């Protein structure tokens, strides 16, 4: 029988779980600058996560999706994207949004149940968080189509979880990206769980990266706890897309070190040994060890940075908590560019009810 297609998926990884090089490292890792920046950003991201969880526990923020375990992915993608590329995130990418310029205050605002968290001009053309799973994959394909139609050398970058790879939207997006050779990069944060559903139940294939084959795009697997491997994979994919050569699917193998959200209790379905083992591979510590051994980072710098980050975050928290409530009419005024006549009466009722004496006045 003729062989009419042949494909392979490779796993890219440079640093061992213990932060030791497993193969020759790329040139850019020979100077500290970028790696230290990655590290500092990962620490910032993690501290922010801890803080938001604390705010949630004290009722100052709503249900929250922790990013613990995906710091490396968000950090590297955030760093490598060009300013005028467009990010099409999912709900676990607020760190990435922040690294692309969204003020922390707005991150808090969003998770605090306030639409203004997606309004900041700093977001540029970036999409707000997508909550319905995998819908963002298609939006990214649409964004990339716009770039392609206009001949712009911009790239759309979109992320999703391992669970999302089962949904038609994701697969349809890969397909059109291949058919139209779109400048888009799909990054799957394969953190092994979709709420309580393990990766093994999601899909019978050995890797998620091989979903690229069905669409005729590039696919590869990368250790999502290894910033060096991520850096290589993401920069190649961006370059490939920017040169008009089409899309890439990157499966970044990570682990969700947190509960699914603050509304979840993972102990109900996840063995504690598995979680413990995952902490041995986690990205921040891994890079820290490497930097220590290079002599590029020490305990003193760590303390200073944690303090600096802590203050930065606290300033944002204060600003968030002090932010006045949005005007009540915002609930209706942004629905259409112009208020249709048909909505005027409801708008009046909305405002009246919120006033002292109204049915909804607190």
């Amino acid at each position, binding site marked *: 029988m003729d062989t009419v297609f042949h494909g392979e998926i490779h796993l890219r990884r440079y640093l061992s779980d213990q932060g030791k090089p497993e193969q020759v490292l790329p040139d850019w890792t020979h100077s500290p600058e970028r790696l230290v920046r990655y590290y500092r950003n990962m620490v910032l991201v993690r501290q922010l996560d801890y803080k938001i969880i604390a705010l949630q526990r004290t009722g100052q923020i*709503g249900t929250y999706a922790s990013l613990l375990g995906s710091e490396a992915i968000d950090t590297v993608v955030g760093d490598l994207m060009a300013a005028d590329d467009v990010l099409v995130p999912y709900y676990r990418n607020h760190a990435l949004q922040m690294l692309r310029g969204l003020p922390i205050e707005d991150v808090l605002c969003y998770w605090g149940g306030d639409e203004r968290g997606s309004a900041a001009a700093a977001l540029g053309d970036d999409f707000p968080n997508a909550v319905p799973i995998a819908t963002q994959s298609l939006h990214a394909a649409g964004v990339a189509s716009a770039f392609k139609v206009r001949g712009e050398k911009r790239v759309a970058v979109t992320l999703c979880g391992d*669970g*999302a790879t089962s949904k038609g939207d994701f697969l349809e997006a890969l397909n059109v990206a291949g058919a139209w050779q779109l400048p888009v990069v799909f990054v799957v944060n394969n953190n092994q769980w979709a709420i309580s559903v393990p990766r093994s139940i999601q899909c019978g294939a050995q890797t998620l990266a091989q979903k690229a084959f069905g669409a005729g795009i590039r696919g590869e697997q990368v250790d999502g706890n290894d910033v060096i491997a991520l850096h290589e994979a993401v920069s190649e994919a961006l370059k490939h897309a920017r040169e008009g050569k089409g899309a890439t699917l990157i499966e970044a193998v990570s682990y969700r070190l947190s509960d699914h959200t603050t509304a979840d209790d993972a102990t109900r379905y996840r063995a504690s040994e598995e979680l413990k083992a995952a902490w041995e591979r986690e990205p921040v510590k891994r890079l820290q060890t490497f930097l220590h051994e290079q002599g590029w980072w020490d305990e003193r710098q760590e303390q200073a940075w944690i303090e600096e980050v802590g203050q930065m975050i606290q300033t944002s928290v204060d600003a968030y908590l002090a932010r006045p409530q949005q005007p009540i009419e915002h609930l209706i005024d942004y629905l259409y560019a112009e208020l249709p006549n048909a909505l005027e009466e409801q708008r009046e009722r909305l405002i009246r009810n919120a006033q002292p004496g109204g049915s909804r006045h607190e």
Partner: protein
Amino acid sequence: MSNAITMVEAVNLALHSEMRRDQSVMVLGEDVGVNGGVFRATVGLRDEFGMKRVMDTPLAETMIAGLSVGMATQGLKPVAEIQFMGFIFPTMEHLIGHAARMRHRTRGRLSCPLVVRVPYGGGIHAPEHHSESTEALFAHIPGLRVVIPSSPARAYGLLLAAIRNPDPVLFMEPKRVYRLNAQPVEDSGETLPLDTCYTLREGSDITLVSWGAMIKETLEAADRLAQQGVSCEVIDVVTLNPIDHNTILASVDKTGRCVIVHEAPKSGAVGAEIAATIAEKGLLSLQAPVARVTGYDTVMPYYRMEHHYMPSTADILEAVNTTLEFS
């Protein structure tokens, strides 16, 4: 003697009960197995009935609906869970185009006795897309029953009825009241009737029509009005397709006044169908316009502002007073 249980526990009890009685009942959905459902509605089923009958699916709502259609035609009774109403849209092609017409299309050769359970509605401080009430999109579909309980006992009896029903049922669970007002529910295995309104309280001055979580505020309003000497008839529609208009018309014929209460945006919601039917068949009974107390025709706000969106007891009282004062 039965213990007082909440609505979500009543759902769970009904599932246990029916799965024991009928081997062909299957439960499937995201996180329904080991985790017992994000609202704990399916907790314990996996342990008792095994992974063959309680299936954690890959994350794909179209698939959940499509699988259920396939299973139902082959003599199984799938009870699928969609995690939140905001994620139900990918199921629509299968529910509308196949589940609701399989019997019709094959002139009775195949049928599609499936249940899709879905928590809906606002008021639990959830993220975006977790608070919608889009029952109108389904209640308009010929062949698709839409059922919403408003108490633990009705949740139990109606869910049994939905599962035993030979046709597809969308079973919407008002999650805002999932854990309010526990009441004793006996695991009798007895169903409650579908396709009929439930008159929760008889009265003579005005008819209040509602369903789901808003029954809570509607009954509160009726209580307050009773104190003021106003006698409200309170009707829980329960089955939103097909609607038992006769009960509502008979009530309005008696009271002459009607206020409809629902959480969904006003325009084109199920309340419109009820008001339109009154305008068509009960016009001469009416002593006042039919009022609707509803959500706004805008997107359900994120949680910080959602209380501005949801109809309140005060809103119902205001509408009732306006209606009573009309002449």
